[in-house]
């Protein structure tokens, strides 16, 4: 809660700062801990339901913590026509989770994104911020294995 108070104090205490504040909290905690909402509501002088409404409206914010590794599959049109759905299927199968979910061991979160604007490289998978272009289904397992190894 101390961190959260520090974040809050950096902004004007008004609704116009809500999305900026949520970005900061999401970055700090890897999710929006529900227990921070009442304090935010009080400080920003808006209702808790308003905050809840905003944070669930936008894809950037999650109430559940994301996994240690974030795998994002671009589902933009250029990637789609080059076979992105097959890549997503393979990641889902290998990780045993659906897009939008986090694995039980909290190692991986799998997400879809509508377009990352790197269309020349499609289909693209982004793993912990690193772009992997021209993906093929056979490469999925290799990439996931490489991550497992870096952890050891």
């Amino acid at each position: 809660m101390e961190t959260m108070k520090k974040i809050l104090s950096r902004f004007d205490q008004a609704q116009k700062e809500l999305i900026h504040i949520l970005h900061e909290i999401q970055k700090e905690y890897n999710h929006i801990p529900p227990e921070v909402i009442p304090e935010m509501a009080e400080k920003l002088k808006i209702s808790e339901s308003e905050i809840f409404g905003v944070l669930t409206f936008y894809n950037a914010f999650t109430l559940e913590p994301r996994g240690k590794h974030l795998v994002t599959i671009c589902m933009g049109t250029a990637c789609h026509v080059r076979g992105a759905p097959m890549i997503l299927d393979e990641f889902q199968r290998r990780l045993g989770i659906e897009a939008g979910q986090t694995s039980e061991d909290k190692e991986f979160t799998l997400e879809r994104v509508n377009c990352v604007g790197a269309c020349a490289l499609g289909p693209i998978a982004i793993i912990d911020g690193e772009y992997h272009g021209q993906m093929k289904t056979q490469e999925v397992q290799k990439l996931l294995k490489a991550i497992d190894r870096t952890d050891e």
Partner: protein
Amino acid sequence: MEEVYITRLERTKAEILASRKQAMTVVTVCGGTGCHAYGCLKVAQAFEEEIKRQNLHRQVSVRTTGCHGFCERGPIVVIQPDGIFYQRVQIPDIQEIVTETIKNKKILDRLLYVDPKTKKSVVLEKEVPFYKTQERIVFGNNGFIDPKDIRDYIALDGYKALAKVLFEMTAEEVIDEIKASNLRGRGGAGFPTGKKWEICRDSKSDVKYIICNADEGDPGAYMDRSLLEGNPHSVIEGMIIGAYAIGASEGYIYVRMEYPLAVNNITLALEQAREYGLLGQSILGSEFHFDIHVFRGAGAFVSGEETSMMASIEGKRAFPKQRPPFPAQKGLWGNPTNINNVETWANVPYIINRGAEWYSGIGTPTSKGTKIFSLVGKINNTGLVEVPMGITMRKIVYDIGGGIKNNKKFKAVQTGGPSGGCLPAQLLDLPIDYESLTRAGSMMGSGGMIVMDEENCMVDVARYFLNFTQEESCGKCVPCRVGTRQLVEILTRITQGKGEEEDIKKLQNLSKTIKSTSLCGLGQTAPNPVLTTLRYFRDEYEAHIKEKACPALVCKELIVYHIEPEKCVGCLLCLKSCPVEAISGERKKVHVIDQDLCIKCGACFDICPPKVRAVSKYTGKKKERVLKKASDPRVNR
């Protein structure tokens, strides 16, 4: 005042140019998103090191620039001032480039682009066919500018238009100039920019805002990203000029969160502009005050709609509002607000510098200037292209784009993102402008141009877009929230082979209702992908519904993978690549797919060597035949 200012900016420019005289050769490394992913930063760093090692750093400098546009060929290196164009440059090439090309003035053939048509190597960037047919105005300076250094922009006459506006033009004159240029909004709808500014200027209020819409949500479009990342000051200069014309004191740049590099570059550019007195109080010593904030979006497509964007900046859910009142009358926090797209703002300095007459000389009678398109999908030369309005799709696809990948057959170009439509081969000679695209059932949108070939299923594409809009519908109005969902359900059924005869009629009726009754642009245009594919590719819908076949061999439920016994060489590649062990066989013996286990991931199809090509896909009656054979115990087991 005028004197003081002009000398100051001129002096700054002269100083910058003087400091650079020593470094005659500049190695520019493209720092666009595509090249980033190819590892351009390491390439740039390796150049720095090698140049230092060879003790050339007094004569040669390295600059990481904005996007050059030819993303297909990254990392791209252009050696200035000659303009030698090297593509797909890797770390091991660098020592040789420095020794041979920079020191000994010798060209390295293997790094040159080879024109696939003439089979000849091209040395200079401007001679590469991809660039030759383009008309690069807004995008022109990207390749010369380090977006992290304002001095590069100033050295190329940056902020000259702003100076002209502040000291030589009244606000009305600026608006008249933009009106005379006939610049129209580049975000999609094409509303005349000068008119938009005038309405906002005429609204009475002490506080006015301007917004730069950089929430480039259309999948497959990334020109705004490249402008913000590659030449942020052109956008900022356009905004300051607009703010002066409208009388706004504060501006926002609303950037998608998916574009972290754009957020960084624009934030840095704003800081530098403030340092140089180009933002803040008394801009360049004038009596005009104005500043810009960056607002990072939070991942909602609907926030690209202008009333939703304002709600989002206010810290609320991005719900659209009924219009009127229009944002120009009652916008951000109830004050008059003018929103333009990134590319629109970036056009402004060029119009002021070179005049409305010059600008309106480019393009068609109703659409002036150039437009940047992101040419992506099944095209040989993927990248960003800037072309005059009125150019035909054929020129873009074949002359600039170099035709379809792997010599496949062209099927369609999708323009306008989820609000647009798919245009077929018979419209390839259509001159592209706002009106022609709308008449064809699509729209300009922000400029995504996704090329599709014979291996793309148009029903699947329609389903893809509707799935997108359905997920991104904010849910405020019923036609969009419920209607798009119904469309997705019908389309999904069709792609699964469960379509019924009356589905086409249902799709048409539902589309009509959603178009005419939705609250905002998202819903009003959402059915376009369905309507255009029905208009131009009805036969594909009918094949899915009547024959339960997917002619493009895409829809999983309607196809089978099959290994041709007479072609299979028994190399075990597909067997090893199959993630579910559905393939059986031994070395040098024909492999067989167990259709019950196959999940149709396509791994075997991808990995079978091109010389062998033993894995086939079948649909319709042929598919049934394969399945029947597979279940026949005498054949396989």
